[in-house]
């Protein structure tokens, strides 16, 4: 609360030192509010009490329902007073109290009276209060007055009605939309603010009517707009119209560009900025169009006002992402902003420079940034680190100074997120720039010598285990790794043991010494560390003899666990201890696709150490259990894949049926999930009659009907087909539900004895190529692609004909193949003319498949693609091409 701030002279009155609200207390103020009920109102006293109430409310104090109601009723009494100052306070107080619906009625008559008063200012305020507290029904009563008020001569009254309209549009759109004629008239008002408010409201009313917005913009850009605020709005609406209307291809003219360009010379800074931003955001903007906007923004970079500098550098930062060359002219001005007092401005300047800088300026820039890094917060530092990472990938020759910079900041203080950003960057640089590998690894080694974050230590140890043995002198890393076994917690120690083992497996000359170190770990206090040491000593043949590590062991140590961890976890939980050991090959490999909403994280950038995304709990196990419980399917072998349920009925029909396709090597089982939604019916002997005449390679072998299907109790019907083993057979099946209906007495729930036979047509069902494909992702596509080799590679080109957009073509092909998109390549950036999509999966018969597709689109939306397939079997590579060729 308020306290005396400055020591005042002693001879002054003591009271002057203290806040007028010192010791203010809610209970006492509520008592004081009783003066509102006095027959002889004292306006001054009442105003003081209201001020105290406002103070309490503004401090976050809340009134109970009873207190609020009491105060509200008391305040309404004040309408009797003729004092103008008090009346203004009363209006504010009622809004602050926001009375409940049943209380509003007390005050509406007074406010309605004020709303039709001859005093303009009563009208304006009454409108504001009424619109704040009313509900829909009352609104229709006062609508007539509001419409009049919008075109009132007094600008305050008109603005009050228009702003009320903006608020009411959220709650009662159908009423406000009826005012558009009046609002249209108000847009022509000579009062600047009325025009501003009217324009905002009119646009909101018409926002879904493209033609109307376009007309509005056309007329206003030719007429006069009286306030910078309204002009800024107009620019925004104009760029919306530009976005929605295509450029005139023949002349290359862009509608309204001249208007925007003219606004760059407006006297209000707000308008200039708005126009400059609108120009920079035009889609496919040319350098000629961009130049005038960049020029005015450059002038603002050296403005004395921080807000203008911020606005300018923020806009230029955005431009630098798409048109870095256009911004280079501003680099000198931008460099002086690195020392700007305001850290937001400095960070934006640096990240812009990092995007636009050329190779020769890198060293100078890094020097400037080093000074700057020490006094900004972690969140800004992370932005800078990410910018440096991309700069280094752009200029790999400059890796030395950039890597040095990263290692220096790594040694300084910082939180987890910041350190992780640096580590990720170093890891990416090591992966992408071979020359940077050795120095980068040493920086990481030094970092783990004094790292407080277990997560980062273990990640680095894992990375060292993969990259360290491939360097020219692997032995120099051992000391750093083995130190961990002495100095760190159990988690890090266990990681260090695994890393040591990897060195032992890869570098034969180091093996004896590694064995010595691993043997010491056998006496660790933690059992995981001991277990790992024992395991590795055994697999590597730790009897001291120098033998070459065989392929299986390497595969065990280095091979990635190409199973979704969640699936492994579920399988392990389902495993019951018995004579039979757990078989890892029984773990399903299917990655359940995540809902799209989750995938579209706004800032999901690939990071160096990030683990592959975890899959949600799969339903595959449940299916497997269900099918294995049916003896007829026992000799079908292992379940390869189960599809997502396909609906065979419309929503809300009498019987709801969906089907799951279970694919085995030589069989396909359809599982029909049926639900009876009619309480008055019992279905018996329910079967699905499947016509496979359009699926030549399939022949029906088993049908398992359902004995009875009572109301709202789902049941399953199975139909199994035989098909040629390991072959991608496709076809179309038509389905008919056949059953006996029995009437059920709703009161007793008993069914009648006699039933009637009936049929119910279901939708057709297709088995497509994608059903034979498992979505299995790989964590590093490039590595997987290279290690697969080009032996069974098949490449061909295809024209896809005219398509709506590149994204649509990509998603069609991805869906057709039914493979797992990798590294986020299923998302096509807007406006791109070409795109590469990486897919991986497992083809029936457990054959790994990798696919790389390059798409391109030309003017009339013709899409062509180059499809490269690698797999372990050339017939499979051919099969993938066949799917595309026939799809």
């Amino acid at each position, binding site marked *: 609360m308020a306290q005396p*701030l400055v020591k005042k002279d002693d001879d002054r009155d003591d009271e002057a030192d203290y806040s007028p609200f010192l010791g203010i207390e809610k209970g006492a103020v509520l008592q004081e509010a009783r003066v509102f009920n006095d027959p002889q109102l004292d306006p001054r006293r009442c105003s003081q009490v209201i001020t105290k109430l406002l103070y309490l409310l503004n401090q976050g104090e809340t009134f109970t329902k009873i207190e609020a109601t009491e105060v509200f009723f008391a305040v309404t009494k004040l309408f009797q007073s003729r004092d103008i100052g008090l009346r203004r306070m009363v209006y504010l107080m009622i809004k602050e109290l926001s009375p409940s619906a049943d209380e509003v009625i007390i005050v509406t008559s007074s406010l309605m009276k004020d709303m039709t008063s001859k005093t303009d200012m009563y009208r304006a305020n009454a409108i504001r209060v009424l619109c704040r507290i009313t509900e829909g029904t009352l609104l229709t009563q006062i609508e007539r007055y509001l419409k009049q008020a919008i075109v009132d001569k007094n600008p305050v009254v008109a603005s009050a009605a228009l*702003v009320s309209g903006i608020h009411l549009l959220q709650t009662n759109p159908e009423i406000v939309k009826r005012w558009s004629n009046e609002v249209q008239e108000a847009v022509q008002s000579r009062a600047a603010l009325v025009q501003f*408010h009217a324009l905002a409201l009119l646009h909101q009313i018409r926002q879904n009517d493209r033609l109307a917005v376009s007309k509005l913009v056309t007329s206003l850009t030719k007429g006069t707009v009286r306030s910078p605020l309204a002009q800024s709005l107009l620019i925004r609406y104009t760029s919306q119209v530009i976005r929605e209307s295509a450029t005139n291809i023949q002349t290359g003219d862009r509608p309204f560009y001249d208007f925007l360009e003219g606004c760059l010379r407006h006297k209000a800074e707000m308008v200039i900025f708005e126009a400059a931003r609108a120009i920079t955001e035009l889609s496919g903007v040319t350098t000629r169009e961009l130049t005038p906007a960049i020029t005015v923004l450059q002038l603002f970079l050296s403005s004395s006002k921080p807000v203008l500098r911020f606005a300018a550098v923020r806009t230029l930062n955005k431009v630098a992402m798409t048109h870095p060359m256009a911004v280079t002219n501003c680099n000198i001005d931008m460099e002086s902003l690195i020392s700007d007092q305001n850290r937001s401005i400095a960070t934006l300047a640096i990240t812009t420079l990092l995007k636009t800088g050329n190779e020769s300026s890198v060293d100078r820039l890094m020097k400037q940034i080093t000074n700057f890094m020490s006094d900004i917060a972690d969140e800004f530092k992370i932005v800078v680190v990410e910018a440096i990472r991309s700069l280094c990938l752009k200029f790999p020759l400059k890796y030395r100074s950039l890597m040095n910079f990263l290692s220096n900041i790594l040694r300084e203080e910082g939180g987890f997120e910041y350190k992780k950003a640096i580590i990720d960057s170093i890891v990416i640089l090591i992966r992408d720039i071979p020359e940077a590998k050795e120095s980068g690894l040493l920086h990481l080694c030094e970092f783990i010598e004094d790292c407080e974050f277990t997560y980062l230590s273990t990640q680095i140890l894992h990375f060292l285990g993969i990259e360290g043995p491939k360097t020219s002198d692997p032995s120099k890393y051992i000391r750093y790794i083995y130190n961990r076994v002495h100095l760190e917690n159990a988690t890090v120690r266990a990681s260090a043991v695994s890393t040591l083992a990897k060195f032992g497996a890869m570098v034969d000359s180091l093996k004896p010494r590694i064995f010595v170190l691993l043997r010491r770990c056998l006496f660790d206090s933690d059992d995981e560390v001991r277990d790992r040491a024992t395991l590795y000593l055994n697999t590597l043949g730790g009897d001291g003899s120098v033998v070459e590590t065989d392929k299986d062991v390497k595969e065990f140590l280095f091979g990635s666990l190409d199973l979704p961890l969640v699936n492994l976890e579920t399988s392990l939980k389902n495993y019951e201890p018995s004579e039979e050991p757990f078989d890892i090959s029984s773990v399903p490999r299917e990655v359940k696709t995540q809902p799209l909403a989750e995938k579209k994280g706004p800032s999901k950038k690939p990071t160096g150490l990030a683990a592959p995304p975890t899959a949600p709990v799969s339903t595959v196990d449940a299916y497997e259990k269900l099918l294995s419980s049916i003896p007829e399917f026992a000799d079908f072998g292992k379940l390869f894949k189960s599809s997502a349920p396909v609906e065979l009925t419309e929503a809300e029909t009498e019987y709801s049926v969906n089907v799951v396709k279970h694919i085995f090597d030589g069989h396909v089982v359809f599982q029909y999930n049926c639900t009876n939604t009619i309480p008055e019916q019992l279905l018996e002997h329910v079967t699905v009659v499947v016509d496979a005449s359009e699926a030549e390679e399939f022949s029906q072998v088993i049908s398992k009907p359902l004995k009875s299907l009572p109301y709202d109790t789902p049941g399953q019907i199975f139909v199994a087909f035989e098909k040629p083993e390991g072959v991608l057979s496709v076809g179309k099946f038509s389905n008919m539900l056949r059953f006996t209906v029995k009437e059920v007495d709703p009161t007793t729930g008993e069914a009648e004895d006699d039933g009637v036979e009936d049929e119910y047509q279901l939708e057709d069902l297709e088995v497509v190529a994608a059903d034979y494909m498992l979505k299995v992702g790989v964590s590093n596509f490039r590595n997987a692609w290279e290690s697969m080799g080009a032996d069974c590679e098949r490449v061909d080109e295809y024209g896809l004909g005219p398509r709506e957009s590149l994204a649509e073509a990509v998603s069609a092909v991805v869906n057709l193949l039914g493979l797992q998109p990798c590294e986020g390549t299923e998302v096509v950036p807007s406006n791109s003319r070409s795109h590469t999509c990486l897919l991986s999966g497992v083809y029936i018969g457990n054959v790994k498949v990798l696919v790389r597709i390059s798409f391109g689109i030309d003017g009339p939306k013709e899409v062509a693609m180059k499809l490269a397939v690698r797999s372990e079997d050339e017939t499979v590579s051919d099969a993938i091409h066949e799917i595309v060729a026939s799809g």
Partner: protein
Amino acid sequence: MLLALLISNSVGNILVERYHGVPAEERLHWRSFLVKLGADNLRGAKNEELLVASHKSVYIVYTVLGDVSVYVVGKDEYDELALAEVIFVITSTIKDVCGKPPTERLFLDKYGRICLCLDEIVWTGILENTDKDRIKRLIRLKPPTEFS
């Protein structure tokens, strides 16, 4: 939308706090964030010198005036430039009401009038009036000069 308007004294105690479209559970977070922002950056700032920050898609413009600090937070159309306009109206009106950059005592003495002015400037998240002379008349329920 103008999300928040906050006025605090020099040690970070809240004098006026108004939110629009900010869920109640986030308000405390915003309050401490803004006060910390002011404590970090407003020391030594000149009267009415505007400082600016952005946090995700939200913009913050803040300044110091006498003993009080003023913060406005906005998003979408209320970007840093629009907020600068809003804060300019607020500071010039406070100066007008108090006669000078206020001490905390002076600000509290004029508290009722300042609340009325703020009510004229920002109404549930929308900028309504921008001219201090006009606002001065409006809070006395007098029509604007260009009209009377």
